[in-house]
């Protein structure tokens, strides 16, 4: 019986392989023939006149890694071309390709995604600074990026990721790393484009963008709307209430979302104004705020960032100055349902509204031979206002009854707060002898509420040979306590502490960048760091059930990353990286839980026929440990394969892409709160297709 089933119905992947093997053979034969016949040679290019030249398309270039070579840090740049060729649809997907960075769903209340870099990881991970066009995007309450924020890839021109401390340049929170998302400029878009993407889980996206010059005005604008029901196959067997009534487990994690993101930039004669807007209409709470499936917990948010900057070249001889005025408004609205309604009608509706403003002045002076000096100074003002409705706890007459507005009462979870920051920074790039450059910088931050912090950095860059660059980097970073960590009150779980100090990090790093030939880049980074006074919520003495923020623990870690990028031919490119880290919580002397000790990533991009290209991605996550006291076996490793095939100009002006994510439908698990013992499953196999048009 079994045998008959085997021969009659081979497993789907055996069948796919039978298609794929001859196809690959055929393609490899034709692609090599194709390469010589389709790439125009220099001779014939020179014979074309200007009008003919502008009609010639170029093939994918290696991006612009050159400038990275000299950057005084361990940096990765992801360009719009990388994004397009890999079929990346969101910022999170792009970041998963970065060595030493892993995207994890937060095991805390709202299941928002967080970015763990080099083993530095906490539940909302405010240790990573997200910038949009250089402006911080973070909540004043928790220091995290907004809940449910999914930045669509369509608006991104490039992403600059700095691993390691960046406080000497960016100030607070550039701790484990800094991620700067640069939105598309008018020349990036140069025309009008749009696209429609539909796929598994009822997911759909619509985007459009326009960029061009009107006289002296350069204007770029883009927007994307995204919506999905979420994978209903991400089932957890048990939750905090167990399995079966009154629990809703087994049941799927709630990962539905609906979101709109847009950007606008207007540039004219040294002036640039930028606007970024994101609205989270809905973002599901995964396993639920109290690790209990409830069916209706969601977060909503509205993010608005704006800036106006002016850059003047040669205001004085050898001096360039710029000024940036910035403002941001962040609104977070949560509907927290703690248990299934039938079990206990316990609801909290906290809202936080942040309003921030700042002014920064920067000057670059290059009047001293072999030196490039930069001075910067500025001030920022941060405010948070809160409101809250809930039907439980102090200030509520009827427990689990109707919602009561406790805004502006002593019972609210967090009162309104504000703080002012003044800062000054100085940096010198000193090219002291042929091939050697020393970058030294320091930044002083002075906060109105907790005091000041000084963060230096030193980078010694040595171009040993034209092929090999070596960098030795030292840096310090800090993360100030957030309003929440200082002032949370009346919370069922977490309380603030006004005596907190900032957590600090010192890091030392050695970087090798080797480009033996123009088409190959090899990189090796080794690093070690020490964090002092990491802020965490620590359980209060019995019989209290609350946790209070403390400078609870120190952490130490070391590790390395190996990167390779090989443009084999004009039509074939291979990339990969492997990252290892070993981080130890000094309070327990145990490995930092949940974050991967090892990560392997590789991709291949192959323009196998004219106008066709295919990309495959491979990701392996391994070596994850449990927290001390969590008696579950260590979480298993997983690997995922993604495929994307693109065809340009399937019709005039129309391109099409097809993608499979988690091709082999692997069961991939990310660490859960122990109340959900079976860990959080990631998405199963999914498909999407995208049609895009260009005018």
């Amino acid at each position: 019986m079994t045998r008959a089933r085997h021969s009659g119905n081979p497993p789907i992947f055996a069948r796919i392989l039978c298609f794929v093997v001859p196809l690959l053979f055929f393609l490899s034969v034709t692609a090599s023939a194709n390469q010589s016949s389709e790439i125009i040679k220099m001779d014939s290019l020179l014979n074309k006149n200007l009008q003919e030249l502008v009609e010639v398309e170029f093939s994918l270039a290696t991006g612009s890694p050159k400038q990275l070579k000299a950057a005084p840090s361990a940096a990765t740049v992801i360009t719009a071309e990388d994004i397009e060729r890999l079929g990346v649809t969101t910022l999170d997907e792009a970041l998963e390709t970065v060595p030493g960075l892993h995207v994890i769903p937060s095991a805390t209340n709202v299941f928002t995604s967080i970015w763990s870099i080099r083993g530095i990881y906490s539940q909302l991970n405010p240790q990573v600074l997200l910038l949009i066009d250089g402006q911080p995007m973070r909540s004043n309450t928790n220091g995290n990026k907004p809940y449910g924020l999914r930045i669509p890839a369509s608006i991104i021109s490039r992403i600059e990721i700095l691993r390691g401390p960046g406080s000497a340049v960016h100030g607070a929170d550039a701790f484990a790393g800094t991620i700067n998302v640069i939105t598309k400029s008018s020349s990036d878009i140069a025309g009008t484009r749009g696209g429609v993407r539909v796929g598994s889980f009822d997911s759909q996206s619509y985007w459009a963008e326009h960029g061009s010059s009107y006289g002296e005005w350069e204007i770029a604008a883009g927007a994307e709307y995204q919506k999905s029901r979420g994978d209903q196959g991400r089932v957890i067997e048990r939750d905090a209430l167990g399995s079966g009534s009154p629990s809703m487990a087994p049941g799927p994690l709630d990962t539905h979302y609906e979101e709109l993101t847009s950007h606008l930039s207007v540039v004219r004669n040294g002036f640039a104004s930028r606007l970024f807007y994101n609205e989270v209409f809905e973002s599901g709470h995964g396993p639920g705020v109290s690790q209990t499936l409830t069916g209706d917990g969601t977060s909503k948010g509205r993010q608005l960032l704006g800036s106006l900057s002016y850059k003047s070249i040669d205001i004085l001889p050898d001096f360039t100055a710029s000024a940036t005025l910035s403002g941001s408004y962040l609104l977070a609205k949560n509907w927290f349902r703690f248990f299934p309604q039938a079990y206990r009608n316990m609801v909290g509706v906290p809202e936080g509204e942040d309003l921030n403003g700042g002014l920064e002045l920067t000057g670059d002076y290059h009047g001293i031979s072999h030196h490039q000096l930069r001075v910067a100074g500025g001030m920022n003002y941060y405010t948070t206002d809160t409101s809250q409705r809930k039907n439980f706890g102090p200030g509520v007459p009827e427990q689990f009854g109707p919602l009561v507005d406790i805004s502006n009462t002593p019972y609210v979870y967090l009162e309104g707060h504000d703080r002012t920051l003044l800062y000054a920074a100085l940096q010198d790039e000193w090219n002291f002898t042929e091939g050697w450059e020393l970058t030294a910088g320091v930044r002083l931050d002075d906060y109105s509420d907790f005091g000041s912090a000084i963060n230096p950095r030193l980078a010694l860059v040595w171009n040993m040979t034209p092929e090999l660059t070596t960098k030795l980097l030292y840096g310090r970073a800090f993360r100030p306590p957030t309003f929440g960590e200082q002032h949370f009150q009346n919370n069922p779980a977490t309380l603030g502490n006004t005596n907190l100090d900032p957590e600090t990090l010192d890091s030392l790093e050695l970087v090798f960048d080797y480009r033996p030939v123009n088409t190959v880049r090899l990189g090796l980074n080794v690093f070690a760091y020490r964090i002092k006074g990491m802020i965490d919520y620590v359980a209060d003495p019995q019989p209290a059930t609350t946790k209070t923020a403390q400078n609870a623990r120190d952490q130490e870690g070391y590790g390395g990353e190996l990167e390779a990028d090989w443009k084999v031919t004009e039509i074939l490119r291979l990339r990969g990286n492997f990252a290892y880290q070993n981080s130890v919580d000094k309070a327990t002397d145990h490995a930092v839980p949940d974050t991967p000790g090892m990560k392997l990533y590789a991709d291949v991009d192959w323009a196998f026929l004219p106008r066709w290209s295919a990309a495959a991605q491979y990701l392996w996550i391994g070596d994850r440990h449990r927290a001390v006291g969590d008696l579950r076996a260590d979480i298993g490793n997983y690997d995922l394969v993604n495929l994307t095939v693109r065809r340009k100009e399937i019709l005039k002006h129309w391109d099409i892409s097809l993608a499979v994510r988690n091709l082999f439908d692997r069961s991939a698990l990310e660490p859960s709160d122990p109340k959900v013992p079976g860990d959080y499953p990631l998405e199963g196999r999914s498909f999407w297709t995208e049609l895009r048009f260009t005018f």
Partner: protein
Amino acid sequence: MHTLRPISRVFQRIANMVDRFSTQPGRFKPGTLIFQLTLLTCLSLCYPLQSICSSNQKASENELKAVYLYNFLQFVQWPSPLGGWSKGNAKIIGVVGDSPFGTALAELQITVNKNVTNPIKVIYYGQYHEDMNLRGCHLLFVSESEKQHIGKIMSNVKGAPVLTVSDVDDFISSGGMIALVREKGKIRWMINRGMTDKAGLRLSAQLLSIALTVVDKP
């Protein structure tokens, strides 16, 4: 309608054949050798068709950009005495910073210089430093690696008849003359006429008319 009948009959027969094959176990199932060979043959037959149909030609981005630099030399008039070719002198392309061209400029030089009437020369200045004199070339290409120093480089050649070209973002607003930009998979350029006028360079009407945009920033 009658004329369509034979055609539909042919399709019917093909359909029947496929049906017969696929209902016979083990004969023409995906995964069998015969299936793979058939697939391979069909695809191989499709290939020449595909390459005939395709008129889409591509060039390496580096080479395309290098050829543009050469074209700019032809469509721009330098004030004498830098004049150039008429006197049989080579026109000079300077590259400041890490050259993004790979071997493309060397190849350009070899190919162009076979024709001795319009020779070119390429100077690689390397990474920018204060003591550099960048005024000794006709066309200066500013590499991405020198993005931080664009202001200084522009001051360095200020007033000299040097055509500045780059593919760095915001090159025009930083005081550059010609910015190479990617547009829909092709390379185009933007011109800042204010700067070229100031330097005494005369741009041909063709160069201006095909440009993506022409601005006039002082």
